[in-house]
Every structure is written in structure tokens, then in C-alpha cells.
């Protein structure tokens, strides 16, 4: 036996307190009469002679001490180390990936497993069959009392949804299996196997029973765990599925919208259907689509409204294919948001021109004497000067001043004599991957002088000289910041003359204001995320309100002065995020939760089971390892504080009765 909370023995002080109370005489009103003298002596003599009387006289104290000690021990959580009978640990790996929504579930197999047959016209998915087979498996004869079952749902991640011991927890386990729902994601078999291997690594005998349609990327399984695996395939293994595997919208040089759609046939029969397009909710003319077996049809569509922001494409055919989820895709047409930038200083035309050239930037120029922190700008650019308090927005500091600076300037870098030779310790020696340098070639860029700045805790280096950073960026909170530790004007540096200079400035402004590094170009794939992942919105500093509208037309409203982590993103489609400054809309941006990931369409839409998945089975395969049935024993703790609690309750009742008897 052991005590799980031994420190609780300090409650023995309660018993000591009770004992102490008994050393205090009860304060009674003393009234002396003659008869009391007579009987007092008789009673004292009699009680001294009888142990029962002594017990009777002190029973109250003893009961009280007993109650206190029982409570104390209960609080110390006594537990018995015991060997409990246990059997196998069986992990039921239930594939709930999107491919399990394919309508080729084998209803006959499901009925054989005890499930109700689907009504006429009702679809029967692979997941329906998997649930029926898993429930039948749980009721099956191979389990014995003491076997432990873990129900794990497998999709893009593995998650334990229930675990218990048979037969006690069977209802709970069945409920967990029955409650499984598919998610709009592909199957990451590698993680599922790793988690199952971990869950059974300490078991006496471990086994994974995998109910899956077999649609997964087997190449991701690099090192299967040493585990008995039984793969139970579900579904009829049909392949009649078509998917919209690509949808992207870009603007041409003339501003027209061009939409690219690819519909792919994963089946082994040619099919015909139609592609229905909706632009900002308005239906466009359907496009006929004829797909050869295993082939695809790309379409480039034009003549859309130039103001369009969301394009939806749906492939339809009669009868429908096996999986409807991948027949629809959404694309957003991004436009650079309007960002208000204040340039304080403006030592050179080149910087001003580069700032004005950033798409979506509205530039205002002022000087330090007229700087007003209440201007309501998104990004502040300071040249050689910084205000006494950081501005209420993201900031870029160029050539930090030696005093009144948000970063510590500890000297200067530049040409100096090092022994007999002249060196320039401001020269660039280190360039690190950074969003600021995307598309920027710093080859041949020279820095002749720079401020020697200590890299702050909040910052990460982008470009550095030998002993100090030259460009760095970070989150000093609550806003972002970037610092160029040198004057941009020649002859300090030749950066102005480089074709990459405007790109560097555009990247910096975009990163500061939370935009991508594409400068607002219509990059396909930008703003895409996986359904279910949180959508992180960094509102512009002047935003006071953020509204998010989901594909289900639900609207959410958030305070605009802090980042928004939006989690109601299970549904694929367009999420429109609008930022307001007061009642004025300042930014509208569309993010797309996309089921199919570019380049990985096969892992979800090709519904044919992969032979490598079935080959994972080790109990039925060439390296068969017969499972060991029957209970073993495993050390466990059995807490019994409740028994002590019940005894204490009985003691309380008894003591109360005895006191009032």
C-alpha cells in the first residue's frame, strides 16, 4: 500500500486539536447542592472499577479522534498496489479521412456485421461499413475479459476518442465508434501508426486493427512500428470519382480575370458532366466537361467581372460520383489591402518612390517636428529619428539614432585600420532566409557605414555584418518592427541603385502589415488553409472591428485591436474577413479552406485502395505474428479513500447520536 498524497498526514493536527479541546473543562455554571456531594463519590468509585465505564465515559472523544484520523487518511489517498488481470491492448484505428465518405460502402458486409441495411436510395459510405465492422469486432469472440481497447480516429492526425476495458466499458467504446464522423482531410497513416505503436508500447500484448478504405500515401510511412497490425479493408474499392483538382484566378496585365480549372477523372471509365461556376455567388454559364478514363480536362475561363473576389467551381454529373466533397473548389481573387504608411524624415526620393510603388500603400510624408502619433497609420517609417514613445502601429526604423532609440546603438561600423590593413566591418557577411529578402539579390550590395546595434530580444537577424546585425525584424509587441541599421543614401550604401531595393521595401512593408511577401500579386494558393486549422488574422493597427463570414453564411464579430484566432473553420470554402475602422471598411480579404492540397490530390481523391496499406498487415501477412490471447497481470493502484470516507460518515452519525442520546 502507498499513500498518493502523503503530505495530507498533516491533517493529524485536527486530531490533536480535538484532544486539546478535551483538556479544557467545559464551562458549566456551577451550582452546588448537597445531593451532588453524595452521588459524586459513589459514581467516581464505580467508574474507576469498570473498563466499560471508562470506555463509555470517553467514547465521545474516541469517536471524534477516530473520525479525524479516518478523514486524514482518506485525504492522504491510500492506494493498494495490486496486480490486475489485463489482456491485450487493441487499438481500433478508425480511418475517418475524407475518402471514407465514398459511397461504395459494402452494405452486405455491414449487414453481416449486424448493422441495419440502408434504406432504398440511401447512400452507404465506407465509414458506415467501417463503423459496422468495428462494432461487430468489439462484440466478437476474440476478446476476453480484461482486454483493453483504445478507439482512435485517424485522418490528418491521430486522436484517441475512447479507451476502456472489456466488458465493463463496452457500451462506452461502442458509443465512441458509433459517434465517429469523417473530416475533410487526407489520411496521415504514418502518424496513426506511430501513435498506435506508442499506445501499445507498454502493453503486454499490443495490436492495431485498422479499419480503412486504403486511401493514403504509403510513401509517408517510412518506419512502421513493431506492432501487430491487422488491416480490415472497407468499401468495394471502386474508383469512380472525379475532383476539381485545381482552381485558381489571376488577373492579367489588363486587369481582366482569368480562371484556371482542372477536373480530373480518377475512375477507369470515361465520364461526362458539367462544370458550374459561381462568381461572387452569381452562377455563370455551365461548361461541359468530358473526361477520359484516368484523364483530366483543364479549362481556362475568362470574361468575368473584374471586381470578382470569390470563384467557386463545382463538377456535377448524373449519377453522382462516389465522393462529392472533392467536386467543389473555391478560389479567392486577392487585392492588395490599403495600408496607410507615414514616412517621417524622407531623406531621399528613392525611399519615397519605393514606398509609393508598393501596391496598396497610401503614403504620407512628414518630418519629426510635425510627427503626430495619433495620425492613425498602419506602418510608420522613421529615418534617423524615433519618437519618445513607440508609435501606435508597425514601424520601420532606418539608421537608428544614437539616443532616443528603441534599439541600443553601441557605436559605429565602417572602414577602420585593423593592424596593417584596412577593413570594413560594416560589410555584409551573413544573409539569412527571411520574408524580407524574397526576390532580393544582395550580391554586390556594399555597406560602408552602419550603426553598431545590439540585436534586441524580440528580433531575428536578416542581414548581418561580422559583429552586428544590419537588418533585423521582430515583434516588440504589440506591433511588428524592422530595423535597417544604416543610412540608405549613397555613399553609405549602394542599395538604392539595385533592382532589388524596391522589392526589399515592398517585402518589408508587406511583412510589417501582415501581408504576404507577394506584394499583392495574385499568387495562386495564397490565403489557402486546411479546413479545421485556425485562421489567424492580424488586423491593421487602425482597425477597430473585424468581421468574419463563413461559407455557411455565419458572421462573427471581433474586436479589432488584437489578433484574431478564428477556429470555426471545419467547413471548406471561402471565409471573408473584413476589417473596419469605425464604420469604414478598410480591408476585405478572402481566405479559402481547401480540401485538396496542390500536388497531393491522389492521397484523397483517388479512391482505389493502395496495396501498400493492405500490406501493412502483419498478423495476416508473410511475417505473421499470432496474437497472444488471455489475461495477464499488470500492476495498478486501487485507491480506497471512499471506504474511509464512508466509515467517517458512520462515525459522525454515531458520535452525534451518542452525544445527544
Amino acid at each position: 500500500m502507498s499513500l498518493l498524497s502523503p503530505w495530507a498526514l498533516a491533517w493529524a493536527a485536527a486530531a490533536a486539536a480535538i484532544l486539546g479541546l478535551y483538556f479544557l473543562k467545559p464551562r458549566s455554571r456551577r451550582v452546588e447542592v448537597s445531593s451532588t456531594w453524595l452521588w459524586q463519590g459513589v459514581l467516581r468509585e464505580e467508574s474507576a472499577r469498570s473498563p466499560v465505564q471508562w470506555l463509555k465515559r470517553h467514547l465521545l472523544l474516541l469517536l471524534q479522534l477516530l473520525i479525524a484520523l479516518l478523514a486524514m487518511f482518506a485525504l492522504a489517498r491510500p492506494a493498494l498496489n495490486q496486480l490486475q488481470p489485463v489482456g491485450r491492448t487493441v487499438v481500433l484505428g478508425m480511418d475517418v479521412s475524407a475518402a471514407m465518405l465514398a459511397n461504395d460502402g459494402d452494405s452486405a458486409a455491414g449487414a453481416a456485421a449486424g448493422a441495419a441495411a440502408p434504406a432504398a436510395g440511401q447512400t452507404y459510405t465506407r465509414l458506415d461499413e467501417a463503423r459496422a465492422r468495428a462494432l461487430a469486432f468489439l462484440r466478437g469472440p476474440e476478446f476476453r475479459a480484461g482486454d483493453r481497447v483504445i478507439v482512435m480516429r485517424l485522418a490528418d492526425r491521430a486522436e484517441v476518442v475512447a479507451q476502456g476495458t472489456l466488458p465493463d466499458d463496452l457500451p462506452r467504446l461502442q458509443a465512441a465508434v458509433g459517434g465517429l464522423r469523417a473530416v475533410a482531410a487526407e489520411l496521415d497513416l504514418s502518424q496513426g501508426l506511430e501513435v498506435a505503436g506508442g499506445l501499445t508500447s507498454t502493453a503486454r500484448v499490443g495490436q492495431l486493427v485498422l479499419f480503412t478504405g486504403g486511401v493514403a500515401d504509403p510513401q509517408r510511412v517510412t518506419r512502421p512500428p513493431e506492432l501487430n497490425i491487422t488491416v480490415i479493408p472497407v468499401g468495394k474499392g471502386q474508383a469512380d470519382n472525379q475532383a476539381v483538382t485545381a482552381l485558381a484566378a489571376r488577373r492579367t496585365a489588363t486587369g481582366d480575370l482569368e480562371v484556371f480549372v482542372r477536373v480530373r477523372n480518377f475512375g477507369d471509365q470515361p465520364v461526362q458532366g458539367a462544370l458550374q461556376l459561381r462568381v461572387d455567388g452569381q452562377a455563370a454559364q455551365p461548361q461541359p466537361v468530358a473526361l477520359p478514363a484516368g484523364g483530366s480536362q483543364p479549362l481556362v475561363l475568362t470574361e468575368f467581372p473584374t471586381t470578382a473576389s470569390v470563384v467557386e467551381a463545382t463538377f456535377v454529373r448524373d449519377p453522382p460520383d462516389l465522393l462529392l466533397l472533392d467536386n467543389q473548389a473555391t478560389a479567392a481573387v486577392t487585392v492588395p489591402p490599403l495600408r496607410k504608411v507615414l514616412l517621417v524624415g524622407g531623406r531621399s526620393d528613392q525611399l519615397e518612390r519605393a514606398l509609393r510603388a508598393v501596391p496598396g500603400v497610401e503614403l504620407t510624408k512628414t518630418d519629426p517636428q510635425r510627427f503626430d502619433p495619433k495620425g492613425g497609420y498602419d506602418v510608420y517609417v522613421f529615418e534617423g529619428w524615433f519618437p519618445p514613445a513607440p508609435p501606435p502601429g508597425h514601424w520601420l526604423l532606418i539608421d537608428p539614432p544614437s539616443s532616443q532609440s528603441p534599439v541600443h546603438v553601441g557605436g559605429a561600423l565602417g572602414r577602420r585600420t585593423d593592424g596593417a590593413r584596412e577593413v570594413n566591418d560594416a560589410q555584409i557577411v551573413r544573409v539569412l532566409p527571411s520574408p524580407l529578402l524574397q526576390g532580393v539579390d544582395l550580391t554586390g550590395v556594399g555597406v560602408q557605414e552602419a550603426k553598431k546595434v545590439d540585436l534586441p530580444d524580440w528580433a531575428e537577424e536578416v542581414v548581418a555584418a561580422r559583429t552586428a546585425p544590419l537588418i533585423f525584424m521582430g515583434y516588440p509587441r504589440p506591433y511588428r518592427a524592422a530595423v535597417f541599421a544604416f543610412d540608405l543614401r549613397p555613399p553609405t550604401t549602394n542599395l538604392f541603385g539595385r533592382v532589388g531595393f524596391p522589392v526589399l521595401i515592398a517585402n518589408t512593408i508587406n511583412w510589417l502589415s501582415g501581408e504576404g511577401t507577394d506584394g499583392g500579386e495574385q499568387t495562386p494558393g495564397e490565403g489557402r488553409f486546411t479546413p479545421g486549422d485556425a485562421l489567424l488574422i492580424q488586423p491593421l493597427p487602425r482597425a477597430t472591428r473585424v468581421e468574419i463570414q463563413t461559407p455557411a453564411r455565419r458572421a462573427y464579430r471581433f474586436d479589432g485591436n488584437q489578433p484574431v484566432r478564428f477556429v470555426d473553420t471545419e467547413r471548406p470554402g471561402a471565409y471573408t474577413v473584413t476589417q473596419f475602422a469605425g464604420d469604414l471598411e478598410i480591408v476585405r480579404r478572402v481566405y479559402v479552406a481547401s480540401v485538396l492540397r496542390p500536388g497531393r490530390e491522389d492521397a484523397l481523391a483517388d479512391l482505389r485502395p493502395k496495396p501498400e496499406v493492405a500490406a501493412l498487415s502483419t498478423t495476416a501477412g508473410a511475417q505473421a505474428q499470432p496474437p497472444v490471447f488471455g489475461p495477464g497481470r499488470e500492476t495498478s493502484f486501487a485507491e480506497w479513500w471512499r471506504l474511509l470516507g464512508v466509515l467517517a460518515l458512520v462515525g459522525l452519525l454515531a458520535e452525534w447520536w451518542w452525544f445527544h442520546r
Partner: protein
Amino acid sequence: MTGPPAGFASPFFLVLLLALPVIYLLGRRARRDRRTRAWPASLWLRLGTVACLVLALAGLRLPAPPREAATVFVLDLSDSVSADVRDGAKVWVRQALAQAGPDDRAAIVTFGRDARVELPLGHTRDHPVWGDPPLPDASDVAGALRLAGSLLPPAQSGVLRRIVLLSDGNENEGEAQRSLLQPALRDVQVAVLALPLRQQDAAIAGFAVPPALRSGEPAELRLGLTSPAAQSGTLRVWAQGGTINQLVYEQPLDLPAGPTELTVATGALTEGSWAFKAQLAVDGDPRTENNESWTYTIVGPAARVLLVEGVPNEAGTVRDALDAAGIQVERMRPQQLPVQADRLGAFEAIVLANVHGADLRRDQMQALKRYVAESGRGLVLIGGERTFGLGEYADTPLEETLPVTVQPPEREQASSLALVLVVDRSGSMSGSDTGDRRTTRMELAKEGAIQAVETLKEGDQVGVVSFDYSPRWVAEVRTIRGPADVRAVADRIATVQPDGGTDIYSALDYAHRGLQQVQARAKHIILLTDGEQGSPAPFVPLINAMRRSGITLSTVGVSGDIGSRAQADMQDWARRGQGRYYFTNTARDVPRIMTQEARLAGRSFVQERDFKPRLVTAAPAVRGLIPNDFPSLHGYVRVSPRAGAETVLTSDQEEVILAEWQYGLGRSLVWTADAQGEWSSDWADSDAAKRLWPQAVRWTMPAPSTPGLQVAIAGDGAQAGVVVESFDAPGQYRNSLQTVADVALPDGTSQRVPLPQSAPGRYEGHFPAPTPGVYFVQVTQSDPQNGRLVARQTTGYALPHLPEYAVNPANRVLLERLTAETGGPLLSKPGDSWVKTTQQPWQAQPVWPELLGAALVLFVADVAVRRLRPTRRDFAFAGSVAAGVRRLGRRLTPAGPFRRPRPPWRGPRRPSLADRVQ
């Protein structure tokens, strides 16, 4: 596992609440009997005791902060963490396991390239034996966090869900910060133990070469080396192209502590794909994976350059130098310069050598401007006495393209100027080119002269001479002190009337003698005439005398009546007089010319002196040149650098000799001395010149590329993605093309990768690239209808070494961001892994220990009440003591601003009666 928000774990124990009425009845009965002195306080205390005990037995759960922790220790066992640090981290984890609370559960995940479950979630308090390590050649923090998230109980379980990440933060696969957005990691607190930086080793930190070169061009390999201490080593570089695989560099090195930059030049490369391998050998280096590095370049066909010479064979040495460097040179006269973009596009760069502005038409200059700005090609302008300010480049499209303006530096503008306008007033000046009497040459000459005077600054001096057969002062030389002086001179000019013949020589001599008497730093004469000198005159001695007197001369010829011989004479006078020559058929140009000339007056466009050029910037054009060995130059045309231009060489007067800049998509470069004339007689045949000209011209050339095709390849150490942008013109996408990439792998095999279209004009695909080396990729686009080739481009992708072995500092910023985003702490002590401070929302927690403790306290109180039997007076006394203590506390609490603020949850203070009365 997932409990309700509040409730009972064993509700059947609630039946024991039936004991409460029994206790009540027993207590009430005893009170009625008055045999005992049971107090109501005792009764209620006992009822409370039993109620607490029964609720504890029933397993009451109430919302409360998490009191149990489920912690997954995620341990970085990748190679970026040194072995001793990894062992120390394992010990740290074991110490943390030993300090877990009774209800805390722990799991262990190890990771490198992959992640492994070392220990599933449970109550294990020790982990003496560690399993197979993960693949150590990469760090996938995101994958490890995802796996750890899968091991944690659900978010609603009421357990503090925490991941303790032990890592140096140097991730090179996945994005850890982004993975926090996934559902499995939502509301999971990430605590971090930052592992120290791996012991630094000698490494090749960078290895680069221009990705595209031209045949005959040497490759300049830039190497970044790093060493933890000063030590010796050997650097070797191999070049591999076609069947060639040769060692091109082998030198012992003395590496200082820290980073070192080194440049290695190869010989001229032939057309094709070249891979370069660098190897740094250092004895005792603990890690050799980063001692090798790879890079590549694609060598295209030889460059073609158009050499335009103002004077035949003016730039013979330039041509020879370019020829010797493998650059194909085509020569042309200025007048032959094409204006069609496709014809100019056949050349990567154009060199203009001492070309006068008048020799180029405006459309030719416009074509040159577009050639640089829009086509991204190069322009090299070599000076001479026919160029820049001397060559009428001012305000032309050609000047816009250059990194300099033709204006000499401004530092002399402050000096005083004495200007004399010598204006022809012969009878022919009464003629009009338009037939309008108001626009006779005389009227326009007067207007031009007046405007010229108006451009002068305060302190300048001006005089006006008019001449026919004889000259006379219209306005003698006087100092401009204000608008009144300007007005006075203008009034005098307005009085000039045309009459008589033309004697230019006398007029010039007259003005010369007049100016000789004047004190000024710059003296200039502007001669304007529409006629010719009737009789021969000794102009050359006169002009030489003027030069000796410091007087410069510009000439302006008006009207087509002037013969070509006379034009040539005037041009010669201006050249000898170090001024400018203008000629116009339309007198309407006169005011503009005069104004411009007045602005330029007094500034010397030529500097003739012996000097050695000074190196300002180590630009590519002068790479490898040694400033001390520069031959002397003897003169140059004075120009001013533009903002944004890069001055590479200067004179001893710090005036531009060589300058360059980016203009639009292209580049231009100027050399203000001549190519092989008097000014550069010592320079022309020097080694410096032979090296300078090819480098300068190559710097201006665009990188070889396939029009309408952009190929970008990026890899992560496992695979490389190819993105192809295809367009007819920017923003005009080429769609529905069959696109494939043929990849030549480092092991000599090849692989064909289809690149399906993914967006308008965009084609994407990927190929496995896990081995360090160079992967050459040839992208081919063809029309699927007829198989016609649309575009083809060869490029490459170099994996220098696996990112895990790159020399990076520990990424503490990432680790701190992970903690900041999840509210987790930065850890130092193992026991802190179980600290329950969290911002997680409250969940239903079992509260039986608290209830049992409360029951015990109530029970002791009950016993005390019954033993001590306090009277009402005792309670009253206790109450007064408590009130006294409160009063004392208030008195000790400082008043005014030091008073403890009212807690916010109590809301605003209600106004007192006194407040309301006031």
C-alpha cells in the same frame, strides 16, 4: 475521459444525504429536551460536515483551474544538437518525470527528421531505457508537435495540456509556429527548454556563383567559410561540366576565428551546365557534413555587343579587349544604329564610344532608352570630346539613361561669371523663317538674349555686343545686383535694330578685349549669327588667346543660309573655345538655346590634368584591378552623378570617371575619359583596360534567360518544387501547354517530372532531392496539339549540404514565439514542467479533497463549540474583537493616493450620503 462541465462522478452516494434530516431531528429533539446544552451552531456545523462528506463521496466536480497536467516532453535528437547536450536533455526529462504529481501524466516524443513516441501518456515516473532514435539529419519541430498533440487528452478533459519542447529551435522542415493553428494543438501550452547551440565547427557556410554566365566568361566563385578558432585547412574546388571534372583550386588556408569570405576565379567556361564542388579539409573537425558544398551555373552562348564609334576606330582597344574575352563585337556608325527593338535585341549590350549627340537622331536615342529600361539590356558610354556636355546630350533621352547628368559638378556654380553676348544685327537678321514680322531672327535673338540675362544670378556680370560691319556695346559689362540691373540690360537689348553686313572676327575680338578687363572666375562669350565671315580672319589665334585669358566661347548658328563650311568653322571655334556649338534652322529655338547656354556658361566641361583614378566602390566592373597600379589619365569630361548612381572611379578632384546604375530593367555605365585618345593614352593598352572593358560591359548585360519563361526551384532537403511561370508578356499567361522537367540527378541518372498547370500561366511539380549536389533541370513547354516547342530553359537546383548541418545560431526567437503564442513558460528547472499556472479556461475538476478537508475543519469546529459552549455574549465579544481589528486595519492603511485601490470586480463605489448632499 471527457467529463461534463459540473456534476458527480458517483451520484449514487448522494443517497447518504438522507443522514442530514436524521442529524437535524436528533439535534432538535435534544434541544427540546433541554437535557443537553446543544447549540444551534453545533447543529449547523454538523449538517455542514456531513453534507461536505457526502458530496465528496459522490465525487462532485466543479469548474476550476486544471489541477492535473498531461505533459508531453518533445526532445530534439537531431544532429544540430550535440551529443552531450542530448544526453543532458534526457537526464533533465527523467528528473522532470520523477517530480510529477500523483495525478500528472507524462509522455515522451523524440524527433529529428521524423518523430517517435518514446513513451505513451501515463503515470510513469521513470524512463531508464531509451528506444531507437529518430532520423537525425533534419529537424521537423512541427511534426513532433503534431505527434505530441495526438498523445494529449482532449481539450475538454479538464487537464492542463502541455508540451515541453527541448530543442535548439533550428527547424528545417515544417513550420512549428504555423502548426499551432491545427486543432490538435489548440489550447495546448508549449513550454520550452532552449538547448544550447551545437559546438561550432569549421564549415562552408556559403558557396555561390552567378546562376547564368555566357560562353567565354570566367566564373567567380564566392565562398563563405567559418571556423570556431584560428586554424589551418585546405580548400579544394572542382568544376564539373559535360565530361570535364577537374580540380580548379587547391590552396592551404589559415582560417581566422569567425567568418571568412573568399573568391575563387575559374578560367573561361564553355557553353553548358557547370557544377562546382567545394571541400574544406580541417584536421579534427567534429562534423564533416558541412565541409562540402555545391553550386552551379548555366553557361549560355557568347554575348553579342554592338560597338558604336563616333570616330572610326575610336575604340579599337575596347573592341580588342572584348574580343579577347570571348564577346562577339559588331561595329557600327552612329547613323546606322537601328531603332527596331528586335534588331537591337540581338545584342546584350551597346557601347557608344565618343559619339556626339548630334550624330544620333532622337528616335535612336529613344530606342536606346527603351533598350535599357524596358528590354533590360546594357549601355556603356565611353567619353571623349564629343560626348556629354560637349556632345549636346543635355535633356536628351540618352542623358536620361545615363547614371550622370552632363552638368559639371555644382561646386563651381557659386563662382562668379562674366558673360558677353555677341549678337549679329546684320540686315539678314530681319528675315523671318515663318513670314511673321513679329518672329524675325532679330526679335527672337533679342528675346533669347533677354532670357539669357534673366537666368543669371546675382553677382554675375553681363555685357551685350551687337555687330554688323563693326561691333559696339549695347550694354557694357555690368554686375547684376538685382532685377533693376536685369531690366536695364533688357531695355538696352530691345533697342537693337538689324542693319548692315557681318564681321564676326571684329566682334569677337571686341568682346575679347572687353572681357579681359573684367575680374571673374569664369568668362564666357556666346556668339549668335545667321551669316558668315566675309573675309578670312585669324580666328584660331584669337580663340587661343581667349583661352589663355580664361575665356570660353560657344557659337550659335541660326538659319539655313549658313553654309556647311561656315557651320564647320563655328563648330571648330566652339570646340577650341571649350564651349558648345548649336545650329538651328528655326529661329524659334534661339531663346531656348540661349537660355541653356547661359546656364552652362562658365562651367568647364573638360578637365585636363594628369591623375590616377581613385577607387571608390569595389564594383564588379573593376574587380581584380589594383588601384595602385592604375595608369594615369590625362583628362575627362566633367559630369555629375545622379542620385542612385554608383560612382566607382573618380578623378583626384573626386569627379566621376566611372559610374554605373540600374535604369529600369537594364543597366548603364559611363566612362568619362576617352577610349584611346589623348586623355587615356597611358590607359588604353594597359592590363587594367583589358580587364576593365569586358567586366564593365558584362556587368551591364542581362542574365541569359528564356523570354516568357521563369523557372523557380526551391527545396527543403527532401524534395524540390519546380514552379514555372509562362507568359507572352508580363501578365499575359500562356495556358494549356504540355510542360515537363527533365532532371539530371547528382548520381548521373535522370528523371522526367510532369509539371501540370495549376493556375493561369503557372505549372508546378516536384521531384525528390535528398542528396547534396546539383540537380540540373531542363523545362520544356510544347503545344499539346501539334507538339511544337514553345519554350525551353535549363536551370538548376543546388543542395549544398543538408540544412541540418548549416551553421546557424540557435533559433531562440522561434522558441520564444512558441511560448508567447501559447502562454507557456521558458523553463530552466525540471520541476517547473508541472507548474499549473495557465490561462486555460476552467474545466470541471473533482473537488473531493477540498470537500473532505472542509468536512474535517467543520467537524473540529463542531467539537470545539460543544466543548467550549460559547454563550451569546461570547459571540458578541468575538464580533466586537473582529470589528476592532477591522478598524485598526483601516487606520493603518494609508489614506489618499496610497490607499489600496478598490478591486475592479467590486464595481464603482456607491456615493456616500455626504457625496450626494454635496
